[in-house]
């Protein structure tokens, strides 16, 4: 039997290529993911221990005031200590804001505690000296010798940059200043741990509710935390691998059942010469095992090479990536899954193929039996699954339960797959009728539905990818429009410039309107008032159309002042606030809101009561869609100088957009792997059918079917298959997306609506159709190349 097995493997190698590719892609993907995960983990955790600065104890605290007490106590007793944490403050240079929010952390003035990795310059020795991070400095252009102002208005501190450092990732601070300076930013400072050179009891004396533990333990815990984060990403990636493998199972199972159908006579002949059914089954399964092992080995090697290349590419932008290394657990897992998937996919086809009676070999040449019947049990199961699945989906909408939705979706999809042998051929026939009449098209449509189960499995492999892609694209588009609505409410203005001390320059609004990326501007007149001693511009809002996003036009009623959140503490219990203009006190009803910058807003009538000489105090701007947020910020900050504070929601909006874009890209890219495998499957099915139909094709060619007509018939066949699968997939995907939006967004939003990304979905259908066509190119060429005489002679 071994000689038969080996000969068979040699003989049929080419026909197994597609199955092998499906496994290779899956296994390679897992191995590459493993390497990328390992390298990321190594990179992220390598410097976790750096901020402990060689001290042996970590003191965990709950707020920055406790940190202040610890640091004061340490300074008194000469105990080495350094804080872990940061303040978020705006930074400006020469009166021009460089960034709205920089992460500012501590650098110790004691050389032993200076854990930062100095690249140039020196460490600070005085309170007004700072280190800057080289990566952060790339965009702001900060260099050694620059004087920076950290913080807003009167609370700001000037520091001189004396050195540049390369911050470890995960501690990506932009600036480092000595504690005595950092502690002044109490409002935005967040410190949760202090590396402590003194005794634990001293720490406990200074801050009674602090906890101390060994620095090593603290580092280990941090690393575990980071690892978990990396693992979550790896698990997400593996989810898509699982989908890809599921598609691979469909492709492989289909390949095996086609190949076995073609080899039925061969099997029968073996049975005739005395091979038992069990021997035959074993031999065929060993063939599958050999294929699985070979493909998995290639996959591991390919994945390892791909992983090395990928890590190298990522390192190009992200230098905190560790070295690529093969983790035996990942390699072993990938290999095992590859082999298992191949053998499992071959299991069922093997059973039915080896049931062949020995006499089948002796029957006259009937050709492989291409007809397969789909049983009633299958139909019943399909209906049951559809009913149960859609029931679960409806329940999940009512109860807003996510796991129920996932189960319902999976069961429904299984129902659709089971229904495939009825559904897909019917739709292919319908589609065939739609493309018109003529011998070529009729031939294509007839061939496409010749074997319903084979057609259904081929379509199913593509269906999986298209359904998920559609569902995800639609889901993300719906989330995006929901997020957009929320962003409109939270960040009604893209950019606000609010006067700081005196009225703004009269020409500022025009200069801003002329800046790159500014679509529309609104200049607001008002006056500089004081509320509880703080100077604050009060601006009149009249017509905000075109500048303000969302539904709220930010115009307060007469006698009411709309205050930024920062001023809310000055609102009195009765809901009024005292606004002083030129020494005159005015009592106004107060409302508090956000997203409109540092100016208080009133109606024009109210302003008229406050001042008789309105001057420009604020400018609002709306960005041209697609403008780079950092560029816009830089331009506006340069125009504003120190006369106005720059705020606005454009950067946040762009960041949210970017996240959705990245997510969309990642998901589509990962699902693309499944689609690629499915397309290989379509090409494979067609290619094998060509072998099966070579006599038939030869007959047609003898009777006058031209090569081009034959090629066209095969292209039409592939196109019919891929288009039907894509359209069905899009339809199911839209239903799933609708359910998903109801269940996932329903609890968060009042009316969760589905936004259909028409262009993207049209793109999916187009890509699938073109790819389906491309998948036929090779089989069609091969079919057309055979001369009629050669085709007729083939057995």
């Amino acid at each position: 039997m071994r000689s038969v097995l080996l000969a068979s493997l040699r003989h049929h190698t080419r026909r197994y290529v597609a199955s092998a590719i499906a496994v290779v892609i899956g296994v390679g993907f897992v191995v590459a993911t493993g390497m990328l995960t390992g390298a990321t983990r190594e990179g992220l955790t390598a410097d976790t221990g750096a901020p402990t600065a060689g001290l042996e104890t970590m003191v965990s605290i709950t707020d920055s005031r406790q940190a202040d007490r610890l640091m004061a106590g340490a300074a008194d007793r000469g105990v080495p200590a350094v804080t872990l944490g940061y303040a978020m403050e705006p930074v400006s240079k020469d009166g021009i804001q460089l960034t709205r929010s920089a992460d500012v952390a501590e650098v110790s003035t004691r050389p032993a505690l200076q854990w930062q990795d100095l690249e140039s310059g020196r460490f600070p020795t005085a309170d007004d000296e700072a280190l800057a991070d080289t990566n952060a400095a790339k965009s702001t252009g900060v260099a050694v010798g620059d004087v920076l102002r950290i913080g807003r208005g009167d609370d700001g501190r000037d520091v001189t940059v004396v050195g540049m450092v390369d911050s470890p990732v995960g501690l990506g601070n932009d600036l480092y200043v000595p504690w005595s300076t950092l502690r002044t930013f109490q409002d935005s400072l967040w410190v949760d741990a202090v590396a402590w050179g003194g005794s634990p009891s001293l720490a406990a004396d200074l801050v009674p509710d602090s906890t101390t533990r060994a620095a090593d333990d603290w580092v280990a815990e941090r690393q575990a935390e980071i690892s978990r984060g990396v693992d979550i990403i790896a698990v997400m990636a593996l989810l898509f691998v699982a989908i890809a493998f599921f598609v691979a199972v469909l492709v492989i199972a289909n390949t095996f059942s086609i190949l076995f159908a073609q080899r039925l006579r061969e099997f029968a002949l073996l049975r005739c010469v005395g091979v038992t059914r069990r021997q035959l089954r074993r031999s065929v399964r060993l063939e599958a095992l050999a294929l699985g092992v070979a493909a998995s080995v290639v996959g591991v090697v390919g994945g390892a090479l791909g992983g090395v290349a990928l890590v190298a590419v990522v390192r190009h932008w992200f230098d905190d990536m560790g070295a690529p290394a093969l983790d035996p657990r990942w390699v072993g897992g990938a290999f095992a899954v590859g082999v298992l998937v191949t053998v499992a996919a071959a299991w069922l086809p093997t059973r039915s193929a080896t049931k062949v009676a020995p006499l089948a070999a002796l029957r006259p040449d009937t050709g492989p039996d291409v007809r397969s019947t789909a049983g009633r049990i299958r139909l019943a199961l399909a209906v049951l699954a559809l009913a149960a699945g859609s029931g679960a989906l409806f329940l999940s909408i009512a109860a807003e339960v996510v796991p129920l939705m996932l189960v319902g979706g999976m069961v429904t999809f299984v129902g659709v797959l089971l229904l495939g042998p009825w559904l897909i051929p019917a739709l292919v026939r319908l589609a065939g009728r739609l493309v018109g009449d003529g011998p070529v098209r009729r031939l294509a449509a007839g061939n496409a539905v010749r074997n319903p189960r084979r057609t259904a499995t081929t379509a199913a492999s593509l269906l999986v990818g298209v359904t998920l892609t559609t569902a995800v694209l639609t889901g993300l588009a719906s989330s995006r429009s929901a997020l957009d609505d929320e962003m409109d409410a939270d960040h009604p203005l893209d950019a606000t410039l609010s006067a700081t001390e005196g009225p703004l320059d009269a020409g500022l609004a025009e200069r801003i309107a002329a800046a790159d990326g500014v679509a529309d501007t609104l200049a607001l007149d008002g006056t500089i008032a004081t509320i509880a001693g703080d100077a604050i511009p009060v601006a009149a809002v009249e017509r905000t159309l075109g500048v303000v996003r969302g539904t709220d036009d930010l115009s307060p009623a007469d006698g009411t002042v709309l205050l930024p959140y920062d001023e809310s503490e000055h609102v009195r219990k009765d809901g009024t606030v005292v606004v002083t203009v030129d020494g005159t006190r005015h009592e106004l009803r107060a409302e508090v809101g956000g997203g409109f910058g540092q100016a208080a807003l009133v109606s024009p009538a109210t302003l008229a009561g406050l001042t008789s000489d309105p001057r420009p105090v604020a400018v609002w701007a709306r960005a041209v869609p697609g403008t780079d947020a950092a560029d816009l910020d830089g331009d506006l900050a340069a125009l504003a100088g120190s006369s106005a504070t720059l705020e606005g929601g454009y950067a946040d909006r762009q960041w949210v957009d970017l996240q959705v874009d990245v997510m969309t890209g990642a998901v589509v890219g990962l699902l693309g792997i499944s689609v690629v495998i499915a397309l290989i499957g379509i090409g494979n099915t067609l290619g094998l059918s060509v072998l099966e139909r070579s006599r038939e094709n030869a007959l047609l060619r003898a009777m006058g079917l031209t090569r081009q007509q034959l090629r066209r018939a095969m292209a039409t066949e592939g196109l019919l298959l891929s288009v039907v699968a894509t359209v069905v997939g899009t339809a199911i995907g839209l239903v799933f997306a609708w359910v998903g939006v109801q269940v996932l967004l329903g609890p968060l939003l009042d009316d969760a609506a589905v936004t259909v990304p028409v262009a993207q979905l049209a793109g999916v259908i187009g890509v699938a159709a073109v790819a389906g066509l491309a998948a036929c190119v090779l089989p069609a060429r091969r079919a057309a190349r055979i001369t009629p005489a050669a085709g007729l002679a083939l057995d």
Partner: protein
Amino acid sequence: MTQTTQNTRVHTAASARDLTKTYGRGDSLVHALRGVDVDLPAGRFTAIMGPSGSGKSTLMHCLAGLDGATSGSVTVAGRDLAGLDDTALTLFRRDHIGFVFQAFNLLPMLTAGQNILLPLELSGRAVDRVRYDQVVGVLGLADRLGHLPSQLSGGQQQRVAIARALVTQPDIVFADEPTGNLDSEASAEVLGHLRRSVRELGMTVVMVTHELDAAAYADDVVVIHDGAITAHLSDPGQDELVAALRGGRA
């Protein structure tokens, strides 16, 4: 138009000159045909006979434009096939040649009627109803047109194949072992139909066979052995035929 073609038609429906066909190369070079010269007369039923591997099927494939010759020329219906590319050859076959094969003659997903009309459909020609009914009537298929090939007996399937070959009014019909898979009764019926299509419909039929009984239905017999023609007999008697075949075996 058809009439004039028939009147002016040369009395040779197909001919080969110094036709050579080889397969493989080097050590595995096989000479399937070695310089064959043959003229197949129009309006006659010619049988090409020879043992397995004698080259009779290759000769037919070359004459019918299903396969290219290695050297030499083939003329069918006054047209030299040598200069034609694949598409031209296909279109030529479509319009001038009919085929009946040993097995797998019919497309399994088409009914008998659809199979018969397939060549016309492929060439986009209008169906000549009179001709169709005549052919279907002669072959006794009128009540079988709606059946799929799998619902027909072997003899019926071959009759459908003959009808398909005749319906286009080709210049020549090639039949490759048309009775190879049939029992003697069905064979006799099919051969009778082929002969009637020559006698009654004025067709030219060239049949490849290795059965003496089948050859007996033919007007002329071409005997081929080892890729060369050893005899070309006109209305041979049984003894003459046996002698020619035996001579070939020498």
